[in-house]
């Protein structure tokens, strides 16, 4: 295989790897972390070259130390993860420069470290990248559920009884391995381009997380291959050509999203922000204007069990509460399945969903899938389904007055139920 086909293969494999792991980086907002990691592995690479060891190995060892330091700083009060990344980034890079200046004969150079040299990648570089890609695919296939749950609903994840550190460790490990394997080929700065841009573009266009996880590697590999081809056609450096192609994909995605085609949902509802700033207090999970997505109903026994258990429950119940109730009746159903079934039921309008003040999702079976409202007791959770014709008329009229069509709304009234009011009055009287 000549050097050019090797470069194409390397660009495809590394692009796919960066795209896949990049989706985790972008969804979990760890881009600055990845950026700091690329710079801070520099002294590891220089050190390994000084000792005559393998450069990726040195970079990997250095990055483990760095992740440790960043975790420590990130936990100190008034410091946080941004500070940790910034400190480690500047310190690592300065240390690498210093080591290199003291040993000018070393083969590790700043410019190739920053922009890489994909035309000089070897078969073993590609093998390493392919190995890491395989591991990343396995991780997503086997732990995808946990990864996504902890990314999109950290409170729910904790409430469901999972521990956070194994998932955090898994993602940090994947990011570190990706950065270390991608750097010799595309360099520190351009590795960040390949990690962030395809994933961010995929996130703009995809409707589900599964689609992101498939689209991002494809976009990454395409960016890699077209970058290498462009660099030959236009006679420019390969690394920057790849980075600019990836950035162009992102711009294209942004443009497509800004101009929705007829028949598509408005952009804001394509895909929820994974970590929105949630105000405390009750809020309905269902987006009032959002048309219900037609999903093929998977009426498995688990789903039926969840549906039955939910309709046997009075008032709102948490995922964990329902799960323990099911377990008490001898059902072997898994917590994540309960979580997913409840989310599906809520999506199809068969269950109502609220955020409790501490961020946990609470569910309740609806007696009807027709449009209705709730009266909810703030204290005991007692819920009454109510018709509110006055609200319907008012909503229709006020929408029409402003020229709105297809208006929809969610109205839930919170208060103290009669029993709780009496109990509260009694306590006050005694006090």
């Amino acid at each position, binding site marked *: 295989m000549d050097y050019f086909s090797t470069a194409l293969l390397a660009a495809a494999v590394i692009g796919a790897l960066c795209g896949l792991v990049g989706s985790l980086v972008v969804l979990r907002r760890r881009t600055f972390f990845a950026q700091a990691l690329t710079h801070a592995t520099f002294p590891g690479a220089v050190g390994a070259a000084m000792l005559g060891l393998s450069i990726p190995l040195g970079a990997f060892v250095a990055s483990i130390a760095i992740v440790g330091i960043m975790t420590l700083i990130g936990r100190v009060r008034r410091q946080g993860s941004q500070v940790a990344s910034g400190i480690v980034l500047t310190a690592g890079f300065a240390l690498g420069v210093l080591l290199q200046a003291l040993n000018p004969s070393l083969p590790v150079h700043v410019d190739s470290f920053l922009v890489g040299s994909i035309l000089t990648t070897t078969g073993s570089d590609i093998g390493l990248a392919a190995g890491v890609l395989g591991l990343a695919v396995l991780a997503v296939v086997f732990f995808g559920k946990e990864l996504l749950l902890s990314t999109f609903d950290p409170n729910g994840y904790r409430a469901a009884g999972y521990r956070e550190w194994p998932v955090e460790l898994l993602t940090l490990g994947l990011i570190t391995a990706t950065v270390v394997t991608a750097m010799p080929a595309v360099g520190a700065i351009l590795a960040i381009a390949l990690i962030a841009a395809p994933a961010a573009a995929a996130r703009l266009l995809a409707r589900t997380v599964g689609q992101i996880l498939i689209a991002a590697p494809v976009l990454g590999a395409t960016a890699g291959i077209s970058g290498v081809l462009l660099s030959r056609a236009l006679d420019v450096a390969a690394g920057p*050509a790849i*980075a600019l192609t990836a950035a162009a994909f992102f711009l294209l995605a942004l443009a497509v999203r800004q101009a929705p085609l007829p028949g598509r949902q408005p952009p804001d509802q394509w895909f929820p922000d994974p970590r929105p700033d949630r105000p405390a207090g009750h809020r309905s999970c269902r987006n009032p204007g959002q048309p219900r997505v037609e999903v093929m109903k998977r009426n498995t026994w688990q789903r039926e069990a969840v549906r039955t258990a939910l309709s046997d429950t009075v008032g709102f119940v948490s995922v964990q509460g329902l799960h323990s109730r099911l377990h008490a009746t001898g059902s072997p159903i898994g917590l994540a399945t309960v979580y997913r079934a409840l989310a599906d039921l809520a999506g199809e309008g068969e269950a109502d969903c609220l955020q409790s003040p501490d961020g946990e999702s609470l569910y309740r079976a609806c007696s009807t899938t027709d449009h209705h409202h709730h009266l909810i007791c703030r204290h005991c959770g007692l819920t009454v389904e109510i018709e509110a014709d006055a609200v319907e008329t008012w909503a229709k009229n006020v929408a029409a007055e402003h020229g709105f069509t297809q208006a929809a709304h969610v109205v839930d009234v919170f208060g103290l139920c009669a029993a709780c009011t009496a109990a509260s009055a009694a306590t006050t009287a005694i006090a």
Partner: protein
Amino acid sequence: MDAWGALLDAYSLPFMARALMVLLVLSLVAGIVGVLVNLRGLEFISDGLTHAVFPGIAIGFVWGGREGLFAGAIVAAVLTAVVLAVLMRRAVPVDAAIAIVFTAMFSIGVIVVSRETNYVGQLEQLLFGRLLTISVVEVVQTVVICAIALLLVAVTLKEQLFRAFDRTGSSAVGYRPFVLDLVLNVAIALVVVAASSAVGTLLVLAVLIVPGAVARLVTVRLWLLFPVAAVFAAVAAWLGLSLGYLASVGAGVNLPSGATVVLVLVSGYALALVGRLLLDRVRALRPLPAAVR
């Protein structure tokens, strides 16, 4: 050559005095802009800006030689600051947007430089600067641009602090968040421009990030943050320059001056961090004084 000679006498040499002068001005910047970067969590944007300046410097150099450097850098930096402020309002995750913008800008810079000039020399010069070969004109340029950046921030300081601590309250009272973000981004961009041709982007970034973080470790009093950060940066710059001088004159080891100053800054941070952790531990163990109980 003893330590005292390096700490004091070295600065009678004009090139050492110029380097110290620039670094002292940057310390003042660290004391104000750096603290705001820390309070607002804009470390990644600062990092992005240092990379995004590169194409401006490259194109400016190709187009107008040494005089073109500054103009090009200012255009590129202000452009990036505005693009970032606009992108921060969009649905894209901010960190991904920053990463894409700065890698794209940096790539353009690399392509321009690799086609036109001595590629490696330019890149290294941008990253690490020429701290010891700064000309008088460059000192004046740095001081003037830093002064403009400081003025921008000083005029809006109260509003910036309000926004840093209570984002919702600030916009509810009627301050426009976009304008405040823009002012701060442009100020950071100006500092990056002013300093990067002289001291290199690495040192600028360290000056923007590290002293603010140290101040946060040392004090909880808001108005003390500013002097603490400035004094820390100034002392670290002085020690770092002297250390580099001592190593090269006294021991014959050629330490890169920018990287040495950065490492002194970071060592100071490490000391402050360990001190803070120990202090917290001691306070946690010690029972409260009787008067409080």
